[in-house]
């Protein structure tokens, strides 16, 4: 008998689903017991399925094993502490025969609920992010550290902080109130945005790993956008911007892994279907009079996706979106981006004028991006000496060899414009 195939990411996604569902059933303050039980159930599945083959319903099999484990463990603890049968829910049978317990809708509810639990106001942002990656995406500590370019010890510490907050929650706080849900919704979007940008913008990790993070963000954002509690123009705009960026991801690198400038990219490699999906969500996001930073960012991404070539890009529209973005979410990086767009629209001198008298914050002034943009604009204005100085700075601050290689290519003095 051969071993039947499992769908891609089956184990990771089952992990997220089981943690979410079991946390709802027994209370999120038992998250550690739940996570241990889910881990053991997946191991048991690995050992059993590889020998005897897949059960009829692998998800139901896993649920029963993990659920029985959680209930058993909590009963034992309750006995030890003689706190009584509060958690001893119904026995739901052996792994081989038991009722079907969940519907797709319920699973989506549980995943979303867990996402809102992760976004507890008392948990710091970075911990919220890591808790979501751990519980909903099924990454382990080592994998999270690799993806967020931080140490395992840091991830461990931050997850511990998040879990101890969840432990403090009063028992059986099953329903988040409507008020909590609406007040946490912006945080939920922000966390999904962070998961996406960690994947999309990271200059450190490999492409496969980065794409995986983007796909996780899209998966969860889609669940949010299709659920009544998440249906809002900002959510649609967020999902639109994810699709519109993800559509261009493959084209950002050439065959040997080096980075490509937007103008060098082969636009035939852009994923047309993904662009279409993004545009549909963008259209839906236009209902109502809300205009969020996600709208502005999705608008910019859409302009790039729709432009037949780099030179035919509607740079005036891009500039407009960056101006709006600066107003909604003031950040020096948006100003820098606007300068780049203005330079394409009205020439390098106009681009430099945007930055005239602008004092960048230290984090930006020390980054390769700031130096690279100034080097490029000065080079194109013919200020070879100034350009050269910024070029040296940019190459020195480049975080990876790929970025450095790109800068050297782009910023060469005498490079014809």
């Amino acid at each position, binding site marked *: 008998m*051969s071993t039947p195939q499992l769908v891609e990411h089956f184990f990771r996604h089952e992990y997220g689903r089981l943690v979410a569902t079991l946390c709802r059933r027994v209370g999120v303050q038992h998250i550690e017991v739940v996570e241990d039980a889910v881990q053991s159930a997946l191991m048991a599945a690995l050992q059993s399925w590889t020998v005897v083959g897949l059960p009829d319903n692998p998800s139901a099999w896993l649920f029963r094993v993990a659920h029985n484990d959680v209930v058993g463990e909590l009963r034992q603890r309750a006995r030890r502490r003689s706190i009584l049968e509060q958690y001893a829910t119904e026995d739901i049978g052996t792994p081989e025969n038991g009722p079907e317990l969940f519907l797709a809708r319920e699973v989506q509810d549980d995943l979303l609920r867990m996402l809102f639990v992760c976004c507890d106001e008392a948990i710091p942002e970075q911990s919220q992010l890591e808790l979501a990656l751990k519980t909903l995406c099924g*990454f382990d500590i080592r994998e999270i550290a690799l993806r967020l370019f931080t140490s395992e010890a840091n991830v461990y510490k931050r997850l511990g902080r998040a879990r101890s907050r969840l432990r403090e929650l009063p028992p059986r706080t099953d329903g988040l109130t409507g008020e909590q849900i609406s007040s946490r919704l912006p945080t939920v979007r922000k966390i999904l945005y962070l998961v996406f940008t960690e994947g999309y913008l990271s200059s450190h990790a490999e492409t496969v790993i980065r794409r995986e993070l983007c796909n996780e963000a899209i998966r969860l954002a889609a669940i949010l956008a299709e659920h009544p509690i998440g249906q809002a123009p900002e959510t649609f705009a967020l999902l639109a911007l994810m699709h519109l960026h993800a559509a261009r991801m493959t084209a950002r690198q050439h065959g040997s892994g080096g980075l490509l400038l937007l103008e060098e990219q082969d636009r035939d490699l852009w994923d047309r279907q993904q662009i279409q999906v993004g545009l549909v969500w963008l259209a839906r996001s236009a209902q109502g009079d809300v205009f969020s930073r996600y709208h502005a960012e999705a608008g910019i991404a859409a302009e790039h996706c729709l432009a037949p070539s780099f030179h035919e890009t509607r740079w005036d529209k891009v500039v407009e979106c960056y101006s709006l973005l600066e107003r909604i979410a003031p950040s020096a990086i948006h100003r820098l981006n606007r300068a780049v767009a203005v330079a394409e629209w009205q020439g390098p001198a106009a681009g430099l004028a945007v930055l005239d008298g602008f004092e960048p914050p230290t984090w930006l002034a020390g980054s390769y991006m700031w130096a690279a943009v100034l080097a490029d604009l000065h080079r194109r204005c013919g200020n070879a000496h100034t350009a050269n100085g910024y070029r040296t700075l940019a190459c020195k601050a480049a975080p990876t060899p790929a970025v450095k290689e790109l800068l050297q290519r782009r910023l060469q003095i005498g490079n014809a414009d």
Partner: protein
Amino acid sequence: MPNYLCMQRSLPGGGSEKPSPAQMQEMYAKFGAWREKFKENLVDMGGKLGAGRLVTTAPATDGPFVEVKELVGGYMIVSAESLEEAIRVARECPGLVRPGSGVEVIEIHTP
């Protein structure tokens, strides 16, 4: 072809690191490929071994007893032309030969 008994043994120095869900998926796929590759050799996939006891002429109340589970994690039976071939099948089994785990391969002589 003779059959060989393969017994997994726990060895000192094994990492207690648990595989992540993504790694489990990988192991599942590798295991499938291994079973496909050696399907002619795999006579009995066996299973995990639980608690056991060494029975001797000594009175049952006397210890110490050898708890089988401390030594052996699981077993399977493969058929092969030679001990070397049986070892090759066992060695390629995902997760069997690694730090903290080894396999004992013993020929079974049937009369």
